[in-house]
């Protein structure tokens, strides 16, 4: 029996738009995420996948339903540093060097200076930015900045890593490179990763399971197990099984949208 890292039960989220009409961004979503699992939340813009992630991160409150992270509610989990987050844009502090940016979560956890430095340097090495410790964010390319963001999230060694479309602003080559880095880091640290994306092939390549979210109404349309072999290398991208899986998920979307539009 594998333990659940995250349990989402009957989660709904509603808000009122400008015309004061209620809009449902999440409709009765239930999902268990296993410990150590790499899971993607996949869907088009505005389907509520980011909202779901933000509710897990205690950045937003749901209208109804509950989220438990290893037995804690989202606020308790946040205050006890259960998860780290990587944002769509790197969210770096421009006056801090790479090293100081990565150290920030450790400072907030009152980790002693020496240990802080060691752990930050280690994570900078993990994301392959050794030699750039003393550079400032503005001196780095977009891909490098995003890697600093990942190192920062890893530095605090959270059990769960929440990633909100972290690679969507990057070019294809940088993205593929970071996919490889992310899988390597995930394999060696055994973290639970919840990865939000609107890119089908990215979701398939990275994940153990892909949660397909549909918009209007915002529901969990399907949860697909991905049976591609691990560890996944670039070679997987050229296999028939990979193509089949991507096509299969594409079909789910087509069905959903034909039904609803």
């Amino acid at each position, binding site marked *: 029996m594998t333990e659940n890292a995250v349990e989402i039960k009957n989660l709904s989220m509603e808000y009122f738009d400008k015309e004061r009409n209620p809009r449902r961004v999440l409709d009765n979503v239930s999902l268990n995420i296993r410990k150590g699992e790499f899971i993607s939340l996949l869907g088009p813009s505005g389907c509520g996948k980011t909202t779901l992630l933000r509710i897990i*991160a*205690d950045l937003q409150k749901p209208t109804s339903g509950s989220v438990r992270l290893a037995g804690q509610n989202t606020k308790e989990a946040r205050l006890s540093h259960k998860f780290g*987050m990587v944002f769509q*844009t790197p969210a770096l502090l421009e*006056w801090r060097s790479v090293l100081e940016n990565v150290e920030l979560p450790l400072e*907030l956890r009152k980790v002693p200076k020496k240990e802080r430095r060691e752990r930050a340097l280690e994570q900078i090495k993990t994301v392959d930015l050794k030699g750039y410790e003393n550079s*400032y964010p*503005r001196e*780095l390319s977009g891909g490098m900045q995003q890697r600093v963001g990942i190192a920062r999230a890893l530095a605090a060694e959270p059990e769960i890593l929440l990633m909100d479309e972290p690679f969507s602003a990057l070019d294809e080559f940088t993205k593929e490179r970071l996919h490889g880095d992310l899988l390597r880091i995930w394999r060696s640290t055994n973290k639970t990763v919840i990865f939000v994306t609107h890119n089908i092939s990215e979701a398939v390549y990275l994940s153990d399971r892909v949660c397909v979210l549909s918009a209007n109404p915002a529901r969990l349309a399907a949860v697909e197990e991905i049976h591609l072999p691990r560890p996944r290398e670039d070679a997987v991208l050229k296999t028939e099984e990979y193509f089949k899986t991507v096509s299969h998920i594409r079909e789910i979307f087509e069905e959903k949208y034909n039904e609803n539009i």
Partner: protein
Amino acid sequence: MKKDRLQSILLPILPGAVILVLLQSGIIHKLLKIKILQLPKPMDILVALTENLTKIFSDAAVTMFPAVCGLILGALLGYGVALLVTALPNGGYGCLFIITMINSVPIAALAPLMNRWFSGVLAPKLAVIIIAASGAMAVNAFRGLNDLPQNVLELMRVNAASKLKVFTKLRIPNSLPSVFTALKIGVPAAMLATIIAEFFSSETAGLGYMIKYSLKVGNQKQVGWAYIAVVSVFSILLYEVICLAEHLLLKRYRGKRRINK
């Protein structure tokens, strides 16, 4: 590079020198039909300056001491208000409103008023300068403390940062460039306020008083102009001191070099 540098020095100096020569030769006076009494020739002003150097410096001390103190105190007051408004947005906005409202009262109206409110010669002067210097700081610092990307604030929240830590790690460092912007705006404001306060002061010393006094006396016009020149020089010096401090203290916030990897 060297040529650019030479150009950047020569370009502002040359037109200045030309104007001085035209003034000295009396061409401008003839062209614009100005009497020497209205605008003494540069050499006469320089002679007046050297003849009265000790007196001018003692007057400069009388003026610059409150100007600098007032600028600093006004900046502290303005920053304090900005901090307060940011920490307590509900009650604080009133504070920002009051300080900008007081700031919009013309200095020439404030100066005689402050003479009635405060006794002595220093206190009313300081009051006028503090009011003049605090407005720009309050508004700019408030911007610096609050102009933050949403995701950076969320990063602090995900890492369970306390409100105090959000100030010390994020808001205050983010506000430093705005602080220097405000100080640069504050220098001319403080100088203007000091000179005008001295126009209305009962004190018989100081650059402002001496400008007013010398320009009234028939054979003292060039001395008045010497004082005007000295005020300008001190104002520029004060501005440059702030630029230098910014250059030294905000190294982390500058530079545009990018590495691609």
